[in-house]
């Protein structure tokens, strides 16, 4: 489905600020795989996602989607195969357009957009059915501007917009990180359900180790632009947050610097205190 081969990316090459973001990343994702990605700050998680989505064009290496060579294609061209949910709930929908208009835009993902009306009666019914799955009552407010929704509602809508047109690959970039715990839980549940229902091939970056272990069938950990290790489904089932944490600590003793960002640490402290996985 998705094959990333030896992808490299250096930012500000040749300057004092030179930073290697991806240092030879290779990853093969099979159809139906749900890969969770964890890693320290600056590990290259988001950069990897951005090279797949086309926001960043890699310096070298190749990216293939279902056998098609897409390495150098821009974001809007890759949208034919790939849809994504951003970390910022404000980024995934258009605030001055209505819910139904946003849905209409999403329903044409990667297709040509002609001069037929975006919202028609039959499409409205389809949108209503889809929105009902969110269980937020949005199906009753099709004509409301999206800017009037709360962050959690907008992120749930973004998730629906990204998934209901059946993308070949779904990219989730810490899409629950900006929400309060209750909303984050809701969006996580929705994610699980939608991915399972449509068997979506998914890559999810997260700073929440508990989430990374619980969701998906594969887990990869990145560090300094490389994929450090991967856990298969069976290994994942056996691992705990403290296992992952000790992996991070190993890195720390090697590099002598703290490898975890604050958000991850806080999350970890919370989880271990509650005595869950």
């Amino acid at each position, binding site marked *: 489905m998705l094959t990333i081969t030896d992808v490299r990316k250096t930012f500000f090459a040749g300057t004092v600020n030179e930073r290697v973001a991806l240092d030879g990343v290779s990853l093969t994702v099979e159809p139906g795989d749900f890969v969770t990605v964890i890693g320290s700050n600056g590990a290259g998680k988001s950069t990897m996602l951005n090279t797949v989505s086309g926001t960043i064009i890699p310096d070298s290496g190749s990216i293939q989607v279902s056998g098609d060579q897409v390495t150098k294609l821009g*974001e809007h061209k890759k949208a034919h195969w790939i*849809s994504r949910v*951003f970390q910022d709930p404000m980024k995934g929908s*258009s605030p*001055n357009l209505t819910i139904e208009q946003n849905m209409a835009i*999403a329903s044409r993902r990667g297709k040509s957009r002609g001069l*037929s*009306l975006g919202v028609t009666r039959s499409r409205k019914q389809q949108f209503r059915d889809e929105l009902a799955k969110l269980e*937020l009552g949005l199906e009753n407010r099709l004509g409301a501007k999206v800017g009037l929704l709360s962050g959690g509602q907008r992120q749930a809508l973004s998730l629906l917009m990204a998934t209901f047109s059946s993308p070949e690959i779904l990219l989730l970039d810490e899409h629950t990180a900006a929400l309060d715990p209750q909303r984050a839980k809701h969006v996580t549940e929705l994610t699980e359900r939608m991915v399972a229902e449509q068997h979506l091939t998914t890559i999810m970056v997260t700073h929440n180790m508990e989430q990374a272990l619980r969701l998906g069938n594969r887990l990869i950990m990145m560090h300094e632009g490389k994929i450090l290790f991967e856990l298969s489904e069976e290994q994942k089932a056996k691992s705990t947050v403290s296992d992952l944490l000790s992996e991070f600590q190993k890195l720390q003793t090697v590099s002598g610097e703290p490898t975890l960002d604050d958000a991850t640490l806080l999350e970890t402290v919370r989880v271990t205190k509650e005595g869950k996985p």
Partner: protein
Amino acid sequence: MIAGIELGLIYAVMALGVYLTFRVLDFPDLTVDQSFTTGAATAAMIILGGGSPWLGTIAGFFAGALAGLITGLLHTKAHINGLLAGILTMTALYSINLRVMDGKANLALLREDTVFTPLREAGFQGSFVGVLLLLVGVLLVKVLLDWFLYTDAGLAMQATGDNPDMIRSFGVNTDNQKILGLCLSNGMVGLSGALVAQYQGFADIGMGIGLIVVGLASVILGQGIFGTRTVIIATAAVIFGSVLYRLVITAALQLGLNPSDMKLISAVLVVIALVLPQMTFFKRWNARRKDREARKVQAGVEPGAGTPATVGGRTGEGR
């Protein structure tokens, strides 16, 4: 008074063009100042050359659109700042317009057949019927624009101005959208120029100077009063704003101000329209309106969701 309304309606076509770039695409396009004259000059030359005034009017649209295309290419392909791209095209167009006008600064159309000749001969110009006929014409442009903005292509254009990251992730090339929007917008401006030249009976090299401010005044005044809840309301507000602006100018002239003071008045009008909403009274009034709207939306969704959060940068602004 009637003449003011008539002019307001013809200039409304230009103001709708400004609405498309300034509000929909969120792009301050200064090309307008000269693409208006380009439209007028093109129409005038065709009419003076014995061509049909309708052909001249349509040619005015396409000449304006071409000017918009240049600004669009400079901005998206050459990565020149939007304001600067508009200024560059505008400056270059001054020379081109003079070329189009055969080196003359003024072309008289008084004795030529124009699209308004039938109106004048029937004695409708300057009368209530004339206003009505012009209104129908302007509404036709408005309805076409409304319809376009509600199509799949138009929704993509709206989202390009609203949230470019989002619309790119759904497969839309935002560069192309901006170019298309600038073409359409300046096409409307050129069309308006062609009509104004025929209405006034001349095309002048300076007729477009400061026009962007007139367009902005119309958009901001009209939408300040009528709001921007839907595209249909927003474009109607622009037409209303354009007529209102002309009436204010007419009133100012009758108060004894010089025609040469009009640019100052236009600028002051825009400043007032921009500053007024920042005053405490209007802020409170606006906040209350927003809050009510949000509550209405939230009432139907997620029972007990608490206060509606209108988070994020641009959510507070209308369009």
